């Protein structure tokens, strides 16, 4: 099929497939007898009631709209601060920040191999000074902030954020937001070498423990289903892999000595909203039911909040293509609609230039407007779970849940998610899925407009322009870190890093976050703090093996 296809053929064109994106066969029509087994109280329940298939809140969006936030991060902390303020002026209701590649690896902007990319793919934050600039003029006690950060850098960001709050005299108990803190899934994002599995889980649990005790309004982690789905997994796999990640942290936190109902109420999830509309709605509903049942059956959780699957949605970047880029805005709108009909707590809409580069002010504004039109014009948020009771959607929900439960049990049989990751089983599944998705497009089994159908000549320029990193940005960011190193109180930094190192050597159950907060206050850098923790656990100080540990 191509742009200039036969008109008569087009007239009689039928759907390419009757299967969902994930390969679930569908019939042309669903009827009451398809749900003969369904028991309303047992399988659905009202919104706000176990098993939460219909939503975690009784009043859903009448109580509060979903949080409208857009992931943000580029250049210096000041650059990103300006964009955050711009977003606030456009009417976002929460913030979301992502760090650059150097940050993801846990190295500083002046690392010899970090300079070229400092601030290129996210914001460059190397120390508390940068964190202060990032949130300059932003009332952190009144705004919900999400850190879209998942490597070892999570704990450094938490240390710097807490240090920032304490310096500003803000009560930690008032801080509202989320740190992604899913170090395990980072193995599949290309940063695994910088975030060893056991050390990553240990620091994740440090964050869970600290926040549970000190930051009651903070979400201690999002299991990242989204990044897993982006690799090519199907809907059931997305839930199964993501929930299994979440289960791994629950186990480890219990091992640390926390009671499940103490911390599980502040756990959350980060999901994809992919392009197959009803499948995505069903998937998110299925995830809610499966999590509620799993937490009750496997962990004996008693607090209803421990059963609730609270989730943010990131629309599916992998579904977006650079060909005819404005089409992406349409894809995103459908995906966001699915997220809202499924009862998401928070939504990030991708910008249409997502497969091209970082968002511009213009493209990000359109993403924000997409959410606002959805919230205030379409009326879709008026009634909780409006698709509940649809014979089709309930059937799909059942099938996706059953598929996901099978995979979760398979993962349990090989010893849980951590064992499945270490054995390479998860990676093999992910790679298989990635290949399959590309083959489906090559063979025309899945139509992607502009890619294998309805193609047009390649654009000469991107509508609305593209984000460009200014020349010399990396050098300037590196120079700022060198300046910090030269001007800070060296004795204080050394003492703080020594204390951090000593605490980190005390063993797996010793929480390093309190010492890291002190190190952050002493102007230790992200690279120094994480290097210290890495070295204490027997890993290379510098994940890239270039820098030696500093003499303290």
């Amino acid at each position: 099929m191509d742009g200039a296809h036969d008109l008569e053929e087009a007239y009689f064109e039928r759907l390419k497939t009757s299967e969902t994106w994930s390969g679930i066969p569908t019939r042309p029509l669903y009827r009451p007898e398809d749900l003969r087994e369904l028991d309303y109280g047992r399988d659905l329940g009202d919104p706000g009631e176990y098993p939460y298939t219909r939503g975690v809140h009784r009043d859903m969006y009448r109580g509060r709209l979903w949080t409208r936030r857009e992931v943000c991060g580029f250049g210096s902390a000041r650059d990103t601060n300006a964009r955050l303020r711009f977003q606030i002026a456009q009417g976002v209701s929460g913030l979301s920040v992502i760090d650059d590649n150097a940050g993801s690896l846990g190295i500083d902007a002046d690392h010899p191999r970090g300079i070229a990319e400092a601030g290129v793919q996210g914001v460059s934050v190397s120390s508390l000074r940068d964190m202060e600039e990032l949130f300059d003029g932003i009332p952190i006690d009144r705004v919900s902030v999400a850190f879209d950060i998942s490597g070892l850098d999570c704990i450094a960001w938490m240390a710097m954020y807490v240090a920032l709050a304490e310096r500003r005299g803000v009560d930690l108990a008032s801080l509202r937001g989320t740190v992604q803190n899913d170090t395990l899934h980072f193995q599949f994002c290309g940063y695994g070498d910088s975030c060893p599995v056991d050390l990553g889980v240990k620091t994740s649990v440090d964050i869970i423990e600290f926040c549970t005790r000190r930051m009651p309004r903070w979400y201690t982690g999002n299991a990242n289903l989204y990044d897993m789905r982006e690799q090519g997994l199907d809907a059931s796999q997305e839930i199964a892999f993501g929930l299994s990640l979440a289960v791994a942290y629950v186990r480890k936190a219990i091992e640390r000595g926390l009671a499940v109902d103490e911390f599980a109420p502040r756990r959350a999830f980060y999901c994809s909203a992919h392009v197959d509309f009803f499948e995505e709605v069903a998937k998110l509903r299925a995830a809610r039911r499966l999590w509620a049942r799993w937490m009750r059956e496997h962990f004996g959780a008693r607090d209803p909040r421990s059963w609730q699957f609270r989730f943010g949605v990131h629309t599916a970047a992998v579904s977006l293509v650079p060909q005819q880029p404005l089409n992406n805005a349409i894809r995103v709108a459908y995906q966001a609609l699915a997220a809202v009909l499924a009862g998401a707590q928070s939504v990030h809409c991708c910008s249409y230039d997502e497969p091209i580069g970082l968002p511009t002010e213009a493209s990000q504004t359109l993403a924000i407007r997409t959410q606002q039109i959805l919230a205030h014009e379409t009326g879709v948020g008026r009634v909780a779970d409006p698709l509940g009771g649809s014979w089709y959607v309930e059937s799909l929900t059942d099938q996706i849940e059953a598929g996901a439960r099978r995979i979760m049990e398979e993962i349990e049989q090989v010893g849980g998610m951590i064992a499945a990751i270490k054995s390479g089983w998860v990676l093999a599944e992910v790679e298989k899925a990635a290949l399959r998705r590309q083959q489906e497009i090559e063979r025309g089994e899945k139509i992607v407009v502009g890619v294998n159908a309805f193609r047009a000549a390649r654009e000469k320029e991107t509508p609305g322009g593209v984000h460009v990193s200014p020349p010399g940005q990396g050098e300037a960011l590196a120079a700022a870190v060198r300046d910090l190193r030269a001007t800070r109180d060296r004795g204080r930094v050394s003492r703080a890093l020594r204390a951090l190192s000593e605490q980190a050597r005390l063993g797996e159950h010793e929480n390093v976050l309190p010492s890291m907060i002190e190190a952050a206050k002493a102007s230790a850098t992200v690279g120094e703090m994480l290097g210290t923790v890495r070295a204490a656990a027997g890993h290379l100080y510098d994940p890239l093996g270039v820098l030696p540990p500093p003499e303290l």
Partner: protein
Amino acid sequence: MRVLVAKVGLDGHDRGAKVVTQMLREAGMEVTYLGIHQTCEAIVEAAIQEDVDVLGLSSLGGGHLVYTRTIIELLREKGAGDTPVVVGGTLPVEDIPALEAMGVRAVFPAGSLMTDIVREIRRLAPGPADPA
């Protein structure tokens, strides 16, 4: 024919690089994938050592202009300036002329079809065993 697929710098997104590697292999090419977090120097050294017919760079981290320029310069310095270099990944069409001016022989933005990638790579280095 031999192809080297590489990711340079700190960008860790390598789903695409692995899929491309696999699909080029299925098309009958001998492909080495170097893995993530490579330096320009290591990539050029590997390209020369393995005497590759085409060097494919994958970039999703915004570093495509800087790193590609360095790699092409290094190839020339080491007398391997005739190695065709292709680049794929997340990059704006606005950068394609600059990449071509550096000497990049083909650019495959995200969303490119493998059939196109295979055809272009064959064209760049038609080996004796390939159906021309």
